[in-house]
């Protein structure tokens, strides 16, 4: 591993002068460094510092993990449906009639429909919000909150509309 230490051009920027005067290449990739970190700390059985349990939750944080959660849930539902299609005897109409015959009642049916519609709507609208970030738009904090509330509002409205459809 080479250990050249040389003065770096950063010195001409006054505020970086204090940060570093020299640049030394490490000879390992970022991935290797991360793997080293994890293997060392799991080997020593070190606990992870509290993070999500102590940091004050914000709306953007909650929306982000909800986007992930709805994504996992939707994916899980699709996979469950696919496995059921492969494994269960009888066809789709048979099972639909089975559910019909349970005569669950309109409110529970509405609730179930909302339970399907909301994750789908939320994930879709927030996905569009993500795509806007990907083209570089909407990063200012007030915009993050504004677009976040728009996504939440649209999701609820769309879900309700789908339920009564």
């Amino acid at each position, binding site marked *: 591993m080479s250990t050249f*230490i*040389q003065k770096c051009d950063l010195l001409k920027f006054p505020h970086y002068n204090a940060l570093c005067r020299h640049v030394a290449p490490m000879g390992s990739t970022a991935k290797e460094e991360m793997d080293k970190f994890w293997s060392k700390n799991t080997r020593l059985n070190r606990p992870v510092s509290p993070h999500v349990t102590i940091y004050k939750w914000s709306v953007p944080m909650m929306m982000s993990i909800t986007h992930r959660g709805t994504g996992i849930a939707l994916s899980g539902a699709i996979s469950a449906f*696919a496995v059921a299609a492969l494994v269960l005897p009888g066809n789709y109409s048979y099972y*639909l009639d089975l559910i019909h015959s349970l005569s669950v009642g309109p409110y529970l049916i509405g609730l179930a429909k909302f339970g399907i519609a909301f994750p789908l709507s939320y994930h879709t609208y927030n996905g569009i919000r993500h795509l806007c970030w990907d083209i570089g738009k909407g990063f200012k904090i007030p915009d993050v909150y504004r677009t976040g509330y728009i996504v939440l509002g649209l999701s609820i409205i769309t879900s309700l509309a789908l339920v009564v459809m």
Partner: protein
Amino acid sequence: MAAIVRLSSMCRRGVKPLFYQSPLLSRPVAALQRDHEQQHLPTARIHSSQALHGSDAKAASRHWTAERVLSVVLLAMGPVAYFSPGPVVDYSLAAALTLHGHWGLGQVLTDYVHGETKVKIASAGLFVLSTVTFAGLCYFNYNDVGICKAVALLWSK
């Protein structure tokens, strides 16, 4: 022993030290005696290992772009599935949904699973899950009513 060294010659192509913008001028490497007095000064350590070559270099970047393209395609499929349901849309939806889910869960894995063996096992499990999901959806499209009709029937109740 002094020598002319460019930072870029020690670093492989593609390394950009944080904050560093301007092209580096050739500088003499610190002579041996100067090295000692500079050891204690803060040193920025940078990653300068062998960069990926050829097609590998842009693989991750292209994957990222492909993920976004697929997301847009999936978005467009919503209205298409609503206004013109049929087998073509059914199979396209099966493919797009499964792939979008596969890549999405792949990112979740990358974030939360650490350690070489665990990553390998989890990735293999994900691959099996996605394959079975796609197979199941295609089976449903072929032998049953198909995705679009299934949603319509489910919602009509």
